[in-house]
Every structure is written in structure tokens, then in C-alpha cells.
């Protein structure tokens, strides 16, 4: 096949040249769309930076002509509690306490399980995989009530009721993150040629060594995508947190925000600061690992 490499770029150039008129129209349309998309986020930020007195009297968009309106007053208020229980920083830490272990566990277990599914030979291997794929679609709600009961049973039997505790939430998140995680890792790992492992075996490496030194390094991009996706999913979760940590003294940011929204419904200037704080972490994760994030989305998220 005599395909010259510069061909691809010139095709686009020809296309663009031919569409010279419509190109500017497209740019305008997309610019408008982009602005529309940014407005909500910007509005949130601006509202949180405007003093209480201005709220409801003039629109936040007036900040464009009068930037002196901006103030950090609301943030001072919301952080004034410091690390005290029930404050925003406490919730931030709680969120981290839930999300980080959940992410690490899912990444680890998914990799191991996927490794076994791809390179292991045992009866029922393919059936189990199909079951896992099927389970990806199951909505969380279906499992909530039984698991609550289950936790209670555990409490009765062992004196350790995970309901209402952070580990309880983590376990639930891991359980529901695994089907997708295993699916993703398995698809990725099946692209690794078996020869690599056989070469390792011939050289005398045991199974664990092979996993640790050959497979894992190769799988890093997929693990990164999975980790990021899982992180953001757990960080932003509200339902599971509400069910399992509803009355708890420490609550993650999502519950914190939810409570604020309910109790201070009209005090948008305060509530939006909480929202901005809750957005902050995922945004950083997103911008740093954009490429991996998009890959995770592409892996056919069926969440």
C-alpha cells in the first residue's frame, strides 16, 4: 500500500479550504456553544465571590462591568470552622477518607481479577466474566436495602455492624466499582501478548513476579484511567453516602453540600462556596489526567 504520510493532513486542508465560508460559521457556532457551556460553572464561581448584600439585587453578570464586587468573604465564613466536625474541611477529609481507599482497592482487585480472567485457565472462567459484564448494568438502588440488612446481620453475628461507618461505605463502593473495573482491565490485558508472560516463565519467574513486574507496568495507562474514573465517581457520589452514612457525624462533601442546599436553600452565596470546594478536587484530577480520563470514558462506561 503506497500511502504517503503527509496525505492525512492535506485532506483536512482541502476540506477546510473548500468549506472556507462555512468554517467561520462553524467557529462562531461552536464559540457560542462553548460560552453557553461555561456560563453555569462561571456563575457558580462568581456567586460565591459576591457578598450577601448584592445577591438577588443584581445579577451576577454585572460583575463583568464592576469587578470590584468580588470578595472572598463567603469563603472566610465557610472555612471559619476550621477542622471542626461538620465544617467544610472536615467533610473534605471525610471525602478523601472514603475515596482514596475505594479507588486503590478497586484498581488493585480489578487488575488481579482481570489477570486471572485473561491468563488463567479454570473452569467457568468465561461464564464468570459474562456475569460480571451483566452486573455492570445493575442499578445501585437494587442492592441498597439488602446490603443494609446484611450489615445488620453482620453486626448481630460478629458485633461489627458496618452500617453507618466509613469502611461500610468503602466496601459498597468497591463492590459496585468492581464489575466495570474488571471489565476495563480485562479488555486491556487481553491485548498483551501471551508470549511476554511465557518468556518470563521460561526465565524462571513465578506467577506473582510475572504479575508484578511484567503485567502491571504495561497496564499502567489502563489502571490510571480506571483510577481516575473511579475516583471521580466515588468522590461525587451522594446516594450511597446518604444511605450508609446518613446520620453520621462526619460526612463527605456531597452530603455536606446536600445539607447546606436543604437548610440554606436561598442562601446561594454560601452554598455555592461549598459547591466550589467540592468541585475543586475533581477538577484538578481532571485537568492533570485529561488524557486518561477521556480514555476511561471511551472504555464504554456503563455506569
Amino acid at each position, binding site marked *: 500500500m503506497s500511502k504517503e504520510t503527509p496525505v492525512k493532513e*492535506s485532506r483536512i*486542508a482541502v476540506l477546510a479550504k473548500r468549506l472556507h465560508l462555512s468554517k467561520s460559521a462553524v467557529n462562531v457556532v461552536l464559540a457560542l456553544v462553548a460560552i453557553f457551556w461555561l456560563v453555569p460553572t462561571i456563575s457558580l464561581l462568581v456567586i460565591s465571590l459576591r457578598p450577601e448584600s448584592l445577591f438577588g439585587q443584581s445579577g451576577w453578570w454585572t460583575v463583568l462591568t464592576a469587578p470590584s464586587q468580588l470578595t472572598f468573604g463567603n469563603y472566610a465564613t465557610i472555612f471559619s470552622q476550621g477542622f471542626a466536625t461538620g465544617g467544610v474541611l472536615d467533610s473534605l477529609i471525610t471525602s478523601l477518607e472514603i475515596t482514596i481507599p475505594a479507588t486503590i482497592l478497586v484498581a488493585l482487585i480489578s487488575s488481579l481479577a482481570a489477570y486471572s480472567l485473561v491468563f488463567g485457565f479454570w473452569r467457568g472462567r468465561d461464564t464468570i466474566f459474562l456475569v460480571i459484564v451483566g452486573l455492570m448494568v445493575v442499578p445501585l438502588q437494587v442492592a441498597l436495602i439488602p446490603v443494609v440488612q446484611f450489615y445488620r446481620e453482620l453486626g448481630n453475628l460478629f458485633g461489627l455492624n458496618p452500617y453507618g461507618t466509613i469502611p461500610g461505605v468503602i466496601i459498597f463502593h468497591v463492590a459496585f466499582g468492581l464489575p466495570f473495573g474488571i471489565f476495563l482491565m480485562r479488555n486491556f490485558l487481553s491485548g498483551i501478548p501471551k508470549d511476554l508472560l511465557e518468556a518470563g516463565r521460561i526465565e524462571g519467574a513465578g506467577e506473582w513476579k510475572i504479575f508484578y513486574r511484567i503485567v502491571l507496568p504495561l497496564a499502567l495507562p489502563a489502571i490510571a484511567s480506571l483510577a481516575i474514573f473511579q475516583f471521580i465517581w466515588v468522590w461525587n457520589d451522594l446516594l450511597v453516602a446518604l444511605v450508609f452514612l446518613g446520620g453520621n457525624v462526619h460526612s463527605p462533601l456531597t452530603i455536606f453540600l446536600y445539607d447546606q442546599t436543604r437548610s440554606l436553600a436561598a442562601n446561594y452565596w454560601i452554598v455555592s462556596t461549598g459547591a466550589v470546594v467540592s468541585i475543586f478536587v475533581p477538577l484538578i484530577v481532571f485537568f492533570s489526567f485529561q488524557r486518561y480520563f477521556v480514555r476511561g470514558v471511551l472504555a464504554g462506561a456503563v455506569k
Partner: protein
Amino acid sequence: MSSVTLRELTKQYTGNAALSLDSVSLDVAHGEFICLVGPSGCGKTTALRMIAGLESVTSGEIEIGDRVVNDLAPRDRDIALVFQSYALYPHMTVFDNMSFGLKLRKVPKDEINTAVTDAARILDLEQYLDRKPSQLSGGQRQRVALGRAIVRSPAAFLMDEPLSNLDAKLRVQTRAEIARLHQRLGATMIYVTHDQVEAMTMADRIAVINLGKLEQVGSPRELYDRPANQFVAGFIGSPSMNFVPMHVESVDGGIRVVSAGGDMDVTLDDVESDMIRRAGVSDVVMGVRPEHIDHLARSGRGLQLRASVDVIEFLGNDEHVHLSSGGHELVAIVDARTPLTIGDSLTLSASSEAIHLFHPETGIALK
């Protein structure tokens, strides 16, 4: 049917210093089958795509019929292109694939029907009209791609290596089909390939392109008998021409060309000697085709050579004999019945008509 003319056609991709096509001029006559051949990356596909309108022109003109089409969109040029990968619409049936272009031009339904069924008959596709491309074999898909082009009755057919994705046997078969198609339709066809066998067997004329430059245009016979330079000589013909660097000597008022070891020499007549003298070179590259080397001795003009046999390839009717002579390697084709063994020392010769001499630096044919 129209003629197609390229005038000083040049293409430079942005960011590349080199020219993908360098001032190529070509006149394709109305109804002619012309092949653009050359090695991978030589620019032949670029030229074809420029004629189609899929690549922009850096400088030069393209004429289809009497119109300069440089600024026309592909759909307005009245050409059809058969892609190497067929590029069939995967979601449409064979019938829809072939009728798509006509439907877009709002041709009435019964005309479409006739055109498509006619083309299908010619290409033996009638029973596949309801199938989708995924249900067809490679050869069948190729024919659908051809059918799509035929149905449009374009001013010119453009074909981009249409046979390279087919297996060897199918290739030979389809080659003949395309040739037959050309005779039947009398269409102007511009055919791109890297396979010189395809070019030799199908084309009225061949244009050899190398590194963006047009090396030579001519009928297959012209290119075979009188290659304009070393590149064309080596490209046309299989197995390819033997090349040996030789030194020019004056002898008895004439010119003799000798190889370094002295095992090969060519004696030239007066006219030929004159040409060499005027070229003013002290070295030349001698070219001779394997099929022109005979296992016998000759005297007088032409090539004499002494060599030993390295490898013998038996091909049924012929044998390809790989020889070494004074450090140079050559291939000769002899009758299979010739008794030969590896290691034999042979005397071989070739007539002077079969000898080509090329300038050692420019490669241009001196004789």
C-alpha cells in the same frame, strides 16, 4: 469520454521541503488506458488524487476535456475513482452503493435501474445486488467498486492500485477483466500501480514516476526496448536488468567498454563509439536484460562475458541462472534444457542491440 491533460503539475505539502510532484506534464488521449507506475511514495497516488480533486494543486494545471478543473470540487469534475480499499458504503446494499451517485444527481428511477443492472451484468454481480459489502468476498467488492464507477459514465476512470488487495490468482483474473472492460467501454482510464507487470499488460502507455518526477512516458514496448534512463530500465522487466559499472577504453580507433576484472567487455560500432566519445565519460554503467544473455559465444559487436554459476533456479521452461563475474553478480535466463551445474565456468554473450549504456552520474541512456 474525455482527454486528461496535466501541465507542469506540482505538489508541495506544507511543512515538507521536498516536492511530492515536480512539474509533471502528461497528455492522456481520449479513450486511452495509461498507467502511472513507480515505487512506493513516488507521487503517483498524489497525482491521481489531484486529478480527482481530493488534493489541492500547488502549481500547474489539470484539464479534463477542455476545462481547467483546478478549482472544481470532485463532484463537478465528472470523474470516478476506484479506491485501493474499495471504499464501499458499508451500510448500503450493492445496488444502493452503485446507484448512490445517480440518486444524488436526481436521475429518474428507471434510468438508475437500467444503468445499475447493465453494470451488474457486465461485472457478473447480478445475484449480489441485495447484499451488503460485508457479505461479499474481496474480488466481489472490487467489482462493486468498479460498478459504482461504470454506472456514472464519467469522463475518465481513475484507479488507485485496485488489485493490490487481491490474492495472486484473483489479481490475474481481474487484470484481464479490467482490460476487457476498457475495450468494451472505450473509456479514458488512468491507472496507478507499483506493479510493473500490471502496467505492461494493461496499458496503452506507461508513465514512470520516481520521487515526484516523470522519468519517461511511452508504450510498454518503448519503455522496454528504449528506456530513457537507468531507473526506468531497472524498473521495467522482471527479473530486472543487470547493471555493471564499466570503464571506457579506446582501442583500434573504436571504443571498448570493459568491466573492472576484464571478464566482461562490450565492443561498439562507429556510431555507438561516437556517441560515447561525445558524452565525454570515462566510465559507464552497462545494462543488459537477463533474457537477452545467451549461453553461446559471439564475436564482433556486443557483450562477451565469462562467469561462474552460483545459483540455478528451475522454472519449468526456463532457468534463472545467477552468475558471478569478476566480483559482479548477474542473472541470465536460459533454456531449462541447458546442462548446468553450480560452479561451472561459462562463456555468455548478448547482441549489441540488447546492450544499454548509461551515464554513471545522471543515469541517462547513452545508447
